[in-house]
């Protein structure tokens, strides 16, 4: 138990550093097109852009890319190709996410080491409520009037039940544990 606080801090710092790193990477991607998918798809089709294209592309990103970003989603692939010349962009994104995932699992293990049995149920329902974080993903996909938006609506409903119900019932349970 005594080691937990310091380990916890170290892990916390590492995760924080990773998060900030991931954020920088993500911003990088955003500048390049705000739609990584487009860039990736292009990448998959033409792993090595023609040298001429590359040469042309080089000066462009600095001024054109940030403004051009939103449009690139709708427009054709060539524009994205000129914007994204980094063959590792997709990998950076994936590895960044994996790093965050692995470290967060370790943080989870460290945080929940010694919990008294009295708190097992509240901890379970409380952490269950946290897994309702899917709500963030759900509202993102539900923000359009389309079939996928409707599927997102189902997800929003389910995740809200999970999150709202979970936190409330945990609170109710914990209120009973309060010492009189």
């Amino acid at each position, binding site marked *: 138990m005594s080691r937990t606080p310091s380990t916890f801090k170290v892990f916390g710092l590492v995760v924080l550093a990773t998060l900030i790193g991931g954020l920088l990477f993500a911003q990088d991607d955003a500048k390049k097109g705000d739609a990584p998918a487009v860039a990736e798809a292009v990448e998959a089709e033409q792993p090595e852009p023609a040298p001429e294209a590359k040469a042309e592309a080089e000066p462009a990103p600095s001024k054109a890319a940030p403004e051009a970003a939103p449009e690139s989603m709708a427009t054709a692939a060539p524009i994205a190709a000129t914007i994204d010349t980094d063959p590792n962009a997709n990998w950076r994104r994936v590895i960044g996410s994996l790093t965050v995932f692995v470290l967060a699992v370790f943080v989870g293990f460290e945080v929940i080491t010694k*919990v008294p049995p009295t708190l097992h149920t509240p901890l379970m329902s409380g952490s269950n409520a946290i897994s309702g974080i899917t709500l963030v993903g759900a509202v*993102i996909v539900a923000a359009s009037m389309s079939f996928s*938006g409707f599927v997102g609506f189902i997800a929003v409903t389910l995740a809200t039940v999970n999150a709202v119900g979970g936190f409330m019932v945990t609170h109710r349970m914990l209120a009973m544990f309060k010492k009189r």
Partner: protein
Amino acid sequence: MLYPLVQISYIVASILFIMGLKQMGRPKTAVRGNLLGAAGMLLAVVMTLVWIANGGVSDQAANFVFIGIGVIIGGAIGAVLALRVQMTQMPQLVALFNGFGGAASIFVAAAELFSRYGGNAMTNDVLIATAASGIIGAVTFWGSLVAFGKLQELSWMKKPFRVPMQHAVNGGLTLVILLLTVLMLSTHSIGWHITLYIFIAVLASALGVLLTNPIGGADMPVVIALLNSYSGLAAAATGFVIDNNVLIIAGSLVGASGVILTQLMCKAMNRSLFNVLFGVMDAGGSGGNADEIYANVRSTSADDVALILETAQRVVIVPGYGMAVAQAQHAVRNLGKMLEERGTTVEYAIHPVAGRMPGHMNVLLAEADVDYDKLMEMDAINPTMDTCDVAIVIGANDVVNPVAKTDPKSPIAGMPIIDVDKARTVIVIKRSLSPGFAGIPNPLFAADNAMMLYGDGKDAVLEITTALREA
């Protein structure tokens, strides 16, 4: 510059989740921990909505109709369930919420996949994450629904249906699901991606039902803790699908904490997770002949129990699932309080897997206003059991069965038990001599220092209390 602001809010939310979970591990800070978690969730969702409203997700105008209706309906259902549920029904509710979280993951991944129709196909890493969301989400959802049915004791779910060659079927299903995932990666057609995803989700649903179907009774705490872990992993997988760090972090935190609880529960039964999930308990295999063992069982009456309690210095109450079924927690509390007023020391011995979810007994007794300082862990109370005058076992069976220590062939061999047999007198309140989940007779009931008080847990305790008041 809204995007970085949203991402930073996700970092803050993640920190709130971590701190919240940490504080939920201590009784003093648990309430605040839960509120921190809720605050983190609110922050993440509100900032996401702001981002959406400002065209962060799509260049088309954002539409909040679906989100608004979904949040209102979901919030209302969640709030009503959370406020109305009785504490004895808590395991079912936790299972149900778990399932909803898993289902949400299936639909988020599906919506993301559908939205690509007519556009750019997902890259392979995103496809893998999508399939994982569908698989883990569906297993969680259907597994939780089956668990809910079992805990709610729905009559048609009382007996698990038999599947011939269960393990082969499960293995085959898993293999097919993996093959479909590989197939998904091999094509660039979004239409195929969607079709295969639906197949994967349906097959994973079947797998979820089949995996949970044979597990029941005393193994429920393990299953609930494991499903809790899965719901977190499903959220994390969805995080990979939509490339969102807060989902990945929160999901993996929950996944990890669920694994730890699962391990604790397995340890408390001296069984491996593999054994719980895939092994079938040898019911009655080497338990011995019930008639022989129960030849010398003595029964007693509430009045006699009251007489014994009158002179007792130290009483230990051992609750089990039967107390939850009989809703006897308030009656037990009153009995304990009355004994304390008479100067008797009263403690509660809680076995880690008593009940149907981790900490089940603690929640019930807390509801009945029993101070948590009086709830003793098994390891803490066992060394002192020989100084205990009366042990009252109410609705517990396997967790006090001395066979676990004496017979290495027994299905519960090696499971740590509460040593009630060491107490001077043991009162067992039980409806009948029927076996517990392990399906073996309990020699404790026939021990020289033990007496059976037959009847409904609540009624029996009320009778004892009345008799004690009159004495």
